[in-house]
């Protein structure tokens, strides 16, 4: 009959911390590499991932259970898993900043791209990145705050694409 249309993936990215920033960009860039059409709708805290300079930090509070390894020091030391006591995470000043540096260092050592690099790959390869108009109004963002190539739209824009898509994920 007609040609089969390409597979489509519709993502909503609603979180702005570093640990939540990777999933939408990894999925989007990989999906485009697999010749799928991709649209990612950034809303609420996810909007911050569209800013020219991304300042996302790790939120250790969202990781109460997974012990982490340190990305520095002698080999034996790097194998040690450190549990993250909830009391420390909530109360120690600077913990979030330290956790962010450690996470970025770990990713760099393992050869994982930065968020900015992944975002650039997404934009270059035709994935649609859409900023949520409503959240922008509420939080006072405007298109000039964002990196080039970002579209603006509301829920209906996302839903129109998602209605005819194969993979829909809320992050």
């Amino acid at each position, binding site marked *: 009959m007609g040609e089969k249309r390409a597979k489509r993936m519709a993502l909503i990215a609603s979180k702005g911390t570093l640990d939540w920033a990777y999933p939408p960009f990894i999925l989007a860039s990989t999906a485009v*590499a*697999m010749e799928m059409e991709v649209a990612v709708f950034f809303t609420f805290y996810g909007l911050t991932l569209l800013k020219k300079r991304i300042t996302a930090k790790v939120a250790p509070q969202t990781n109460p259970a997974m012990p982490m390894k340190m990305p520095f020091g002698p080999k034996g030391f790097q194998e040690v898993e450190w549990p993250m006591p909830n009391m420390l995470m909530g109360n120690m000043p600077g913990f979030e900043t330290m956790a962010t540096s450690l996470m970025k260092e770990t990713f760099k050592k393992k050869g994982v791209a930065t968020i900015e690099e992944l975002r650039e790959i997404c934009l270059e390869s035709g994935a649609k990145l859409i900023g949520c108009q409503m959240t922008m109004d509420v939080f006072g963002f405007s298109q000039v705050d964002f990196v080039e190539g970002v579209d603006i739209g509301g829920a209906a824009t996302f839903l129109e694409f998602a209605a005819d898509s194969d993979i829909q994920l809320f992050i």
Partner: protein
Amino acid sequence: MPILKTKKAVDGLSSGQVLKMLATDPGSVSDVQSWSKRTENTLIDHSEDGGVYSFLIQKK
């Protein structure tokens, strides 16, 4: 990253040409098979030697 780079490299080939790709990411074994299946390129062969995974991919 292996998949993203593979896609870019294969895009630069003509139909029928073969790409040899080397990766150190153990996840690439499964990913390259999935990618090849999805994009209808042919994974002719793959092997591993000392932590380096090697793939031969023919462009459709």
